[in-house]
Every structure is written in C-alpha cells, then in structure tokens.
C-alpha cells in the first residue's frame, strides 16, 4: 500500500448504495447476572446501523462498550434480546452459532486471539479446508487447489498447509485465520479486535493485507477495535460506542481529526503519542476531558446519557433525558450539547466543543 493511499483511504472509497448489505435495527443484548434482584447488564442497548457492500465500518470504544458483543451477536454467539439483524436480505437474528450453515457463505469472522482460534491438532491445510468442505460442500481434492491459492493470497508459503498452527507466529496465524475467513468468498467479514493481539509492525502488515484483499475481492469489513486512530485509518465510517450505545457516528476521517462527542474526544486523547512533550499535553487534556475512569464513575443513569458521570460538560438534563442522535456536520452525535432543543445550558455550543474551546460545566 503506497503512502498516498494510506494517508487518506476513506476519500478513495465509495458512497453508500441504496440497499445495504447488513442492516442492524435497534439491536439489544442483555446479559443476566447471578442474583435474583440484579438487573441484567445491557451490553448492547438499542444500536442501529447499516453496512454497504465493499464498505468498512469501524466499531470503536473502550472495554465493555459493547463493540465486541455486537460482532458476537451478528455471529450468533451472543443472546439477542431485541431488534433485528438482516444480512443480504435474510433475517439472521434467530440463527444461532452452530446452526447457521446458510449464513456462513455471506458472513465470516477473524477473532482477536490468533493462538486460540485455530485447532492445534489440525494442520493449516485441514483448517482452511474446513469451511470449504463444511459450508460450501467442496471435495478434498478441489479444496487443496483452493488452499494453495488462499495461502498465496495471504502471503504464506505453500508448504504451510502441511504444518500445525504452533509452527507459526502470531501474525502468521492471523493470516491463516484471514485465509479461512476468505475461503468461501463471504460478503462480510467481522474483524473482532483482529489486530489487537499483534505487535505494531505486524498490525500494519495485517491491516495492509486486509486492505489489499478488500480491493481484490470486494469484501466488506466490520472492523472492531479499541484504538481510534487505527479504526479510522482503516474504516470508511466509524461508530463510537459507550456502554452499549452509539455516541457518535460518521466518516472516519472527520471523527478522527475532530471528534465531536466528549467521549470520542476522550478516546482520542487516550492514544499515546511518541513525543514526550506532546504526550504530557495530551495527558493534561485527557484529565480535563474525562473526570474519572469508568470503574470509579457513578453508575450511568437509567434514562439519561450513559457518559454523564464522566462528562466535563454534564448538566441536569444529561441525568434525566436520553440524548437524541443530533446531526452535526457530516455525522450524528448523541449529546445534548449538539441538540439545540435539549435544554442543555451549552446547547448550540457544538462548534466550540468540537474545537476544544468550551469550558467544562460545574456539575
């Protein structure tokens, strides 16, 4: 990937076509906790989005934001308690993992842990043949041909097919996982923290590989990660999630350059930079932006904004009323400051907030 392309990937990509590949409407995932009076954890709390063919949608947020749960729900691994998932015209909301042979040809996955997601007692060739034989019904002989071309696609040597996963490094294993996901030409691949377990150099290689494969095959990616710069580098659009809700959504480039929601700003400030002086400035900014960590924060209000306990611009309305998805420039922001009719004292101060010039509220 040349540097010209890598600096602005999103501008080169396409607009959203009319019928999206994936439509998620008001998705809810509740996890029951032990104890008869403990309310269930709302891991995903009414999330709606669409994903077009060839598109890369980034899901970003901190641990517990529900980004991985969304991916798992799409794969039938999380208990969906409300909403609808439509993939390529088929409702797959009810399709549980293990009974979704018909979904497999459209939807594949690359998980975070490249060590755990490959069966250690099967050769790489057998692992790659599995989706071909199980889902596509290809016989072993044809599968061998396919495997050779798959290994070439992910830049692994041909003899890798006869070796076991323990002979490969983390990056190589992740390539194997990518090859497996590509084996039956799916329309969408969920990348659940697919590069988070790798070191930075390997991350870049795998990202570039994913980008090249997307141009070759036209596959769409749902790219789940906690690192805002990486997500926005790789994605066309980004959803910023916090406590199971979408905080901000819009084009990757603008969200990365000028995050609007206070939480997006905090996420961006959380990424370390190499320069020590800049890092010190950043740390001070972060302390201004976010009052406390998630663990220290008061529980989020049932009805208000989930970010209220940590937000520097919190007002009374934030504790009592759930913010609407307010349009702002080319994106939507779920924050009362961006909603002129919300009753927030700083409502309408969106531009100042985005520029980082809005003073924190007293609350």
């Amino acid at each position, binding site marked *: 990937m040349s540097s010209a392309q890598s600096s602005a990937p999103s501008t080169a990509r396409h607009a959203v076509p009319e019928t999206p590949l994936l439509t998620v409407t008001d998705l809810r995932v509740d996890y029951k906790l032990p104890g008869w009076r403990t309310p269930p954890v709302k891991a995903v709390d009414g999330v709606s989005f669409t994903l077009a063919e060839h598109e890369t949608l980034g899901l970003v947020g901190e641990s517990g934001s529900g980004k991985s749960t969304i991916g798992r729900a799409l794969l039938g691994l999380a208990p969906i308690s409300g909403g609808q998932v439509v993939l390529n015209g088929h409702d797959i909301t009810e399709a549980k993992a293990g009974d979704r042979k018909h979904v497999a040809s459209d939807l594949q996955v690359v998980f975070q842990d490249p060590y755990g997601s490959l069966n*250690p007692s099967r050769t790489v060739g057998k692992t790659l043949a599995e989706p071909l034989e199980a889902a596509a019904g290809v016989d072993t002989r044809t599968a061998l041909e396919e495997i050779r071309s798959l290994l070439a696609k992910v830049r692994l040597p041909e003899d890798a097919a006869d070796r076991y996963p323990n002979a490969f490094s983390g990056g190589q294993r992740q390539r194997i996982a990518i090859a497996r996901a590509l084996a039956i030409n799916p329309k969408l691949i969920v990348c659940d923290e697919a590069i988070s377990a790798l070191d930075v150099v390997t991350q870049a290689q795998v990202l570039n590989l994913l980008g090249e494969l997307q141009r070759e095959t036209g596959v769409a990616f749902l790219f789940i990660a906690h690192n805002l710069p990486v997500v926005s580098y790789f994605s066309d659009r980004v959803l910023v999630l916090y406590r199971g809700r979408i905080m901000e959504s819009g084009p990757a480039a603008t969200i990365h350059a000028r995050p609007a929601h206070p939480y997006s700003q905090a996420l961006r400030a959380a990424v370390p930079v190499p320069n020590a002086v800049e890092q010190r400035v950043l740390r001070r900014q972060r302390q201004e932006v976010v009052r406390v960590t998630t663990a220290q924060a008061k529980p989020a209000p049932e009805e208000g904004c989930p970010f209220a306990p940590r937000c520097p611009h919190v007002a009374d309305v934030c504790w009592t009323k759930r913010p609407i998805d307010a349009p702002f420039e080319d994106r939507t922001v779920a924050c009362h400051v961006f909603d002129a009719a919300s009753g927030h004292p700083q409502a309408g101060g969106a531009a100042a907030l985005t520029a980082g010039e809005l003073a924190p509220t007293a609350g």
Partner: protein
Amino acid sequence: MTRFVLRRLAVAVPLLLIVAAISFFLVQLVPGSPAAAILGNTATQEQVDTLEQSLGLDQPVLSQFGQWLGHALQGNLGASYTTGQSVSDALAQSVAPTLSLAILSTLLTLVVGLVLGMAAAVRGGRTDRLVQWTGSLGMAIPNFWLAALLIFVFAIKLSLFPAIGYAELGTDGIGPWISHLVLPIIALSAVNLGQIAFQARAAFTDALSRDYVRTLHATGVPRRRVLYKHVLRNASVPVVQVTGLTFIFTLGGVVVLELIFTLPGMGNLMLRSVQNHDFSVVQGGVLYFSLVVVLVNLVIDVATAALDPRVRVR
C-alpha cells in the same frame, strides 16, 4: 513415529531391569525359607539344608540374582519350588484370564465412559446430573460386594451366567468364554466407569469452551461436525491417558475378583505362590506385570501422539 516407538522401548529396558532387581531383593526379605515351607513342619534341619542346596538357595544373594537374571534374559524364569512346573508355563496358563478380564473391562469403560462424559458435557442439565450420580454411585460401590450381588442375582436367581470358573477362548469358543467373563467385567468396570466418565466430561467441557470451537460455530460449521471432527479428538487425549492408568489399577483389582469368581488367573497364582513361599513364581509374576505396565504405557504414549501432533514434535 517409528523412532518415537523405538525410543520408548529403549527406555523400557533399564526400567524392567530395575523392577526385576527390586522384586528379587524384596522377596529375599520375606522371612522363612522356601525349603522349609515346601517340606512342612516335620522336616529336619538336614533335609532343609539339602533342599536349599539343590535349589541354589545357599549361595550368596547377588550370585543368585545374577543366575536368575541370566536365565530370565533367555526366557527361562526357572521352575516352581513347589510344583516343579516351569514358571514360564505356569504364567502363560494364567495370563489369559487376567488379561482378558482387564482388557475387556478397560475397553468397556473407555467406550461407555466416553459416551457418558460427552453426553454430560454436550447436553448438560438433567443428562449431566444423571451421569454424575451414576458415576459417583459406581465409584462408591466396593467391587467385591458388587461381585457377590451380581452372582446372587444373575447367576443364582436368574441363571443367566455361570457363577464361577473360566472357559478357554481357544478350546471352548467365544460364547462360553464371554459368558464366564460378563459378571467379573461388570464388577470390575463399575469403579473405573465413573472415573472415565468424569474425566471425559471435564475434557469435553474444556474442549467445547475453546476459542477455536467458538470460531467454528460462528463460521457456520455444523454443530455435529464440530463435535466429531474437532472436539472429540482433542478431548480424547486426557481420557486415553486416564484409561491407561485405570488399566494398571484394574490389574490390582483383578486379584480380588479372580478369587470371588475362581478364575485361574495371575491373581490366584500369585496369591497361592506368596502363601507357599514359591518365590520363583512370584518373581516371574512381578516381571510379567511390570512388562504389561510398560507396554500399556507405551500404547498410551503412542495413542496420545497419534491424537495430538504437539506431543510428536518433542
């Protein structure tokens, strides 16, 4: 793989030597002379001395051991002090009932235990509880009591199987052979069945919770295919290893059951020889048992390596 097996066999040779030496010297510690035991209470000291001399028992222990080992290496384990029969022949006659019992019982527990454990892990809930109850019950029942109960119900009341005795597979055919072994096998298997089932349940639960299983499910590989092509193989490794251990314990349990069912096996032979101070038979028997244990361990290692390629690399 051939190198792996050869290396294991090479390791087994010194192991057998050590076992042979230990068994030989331990037997020397048993009070009382075999000669006195053979001749009975009325024998004079003179008679005992003469017999000891003719049996070679008057020589130093080390030279006795050297002689015995030299003969053993040529396949000659000496003659029984009491009957004069060749020890090799005596052992060869009694090894068949013991091994039939131990091997069949182990195969039965392996297959049934694996199925029960798999069902418990995959289905959970009521199936799981049922398997746990049955397994615990099997482990709680002493095998001699179960043997007596089985004889009472199935041999005496229902007359379905013979109560005692043994039929040769070669001369009497497979029907009588099996029917004489059914009750001892059940009595012997009850304890191990619980152990294997619990081990299998834990192994399957562990294998099912692995990330690659989740990945396979998520990528649309059907549940049944995941279970039989991926989970079964990985879950079998600890189960096979535990089965090897239970086989070795089973050899011990066989002694009691051979007494109850009066099977002419190794257990009965060893017990009789110990009582008669027939040390040459005891030593030969110990050597046989340790050979079986070494071979079983080898089989387990080979099976493990066949199931899990990571073992082979080492």
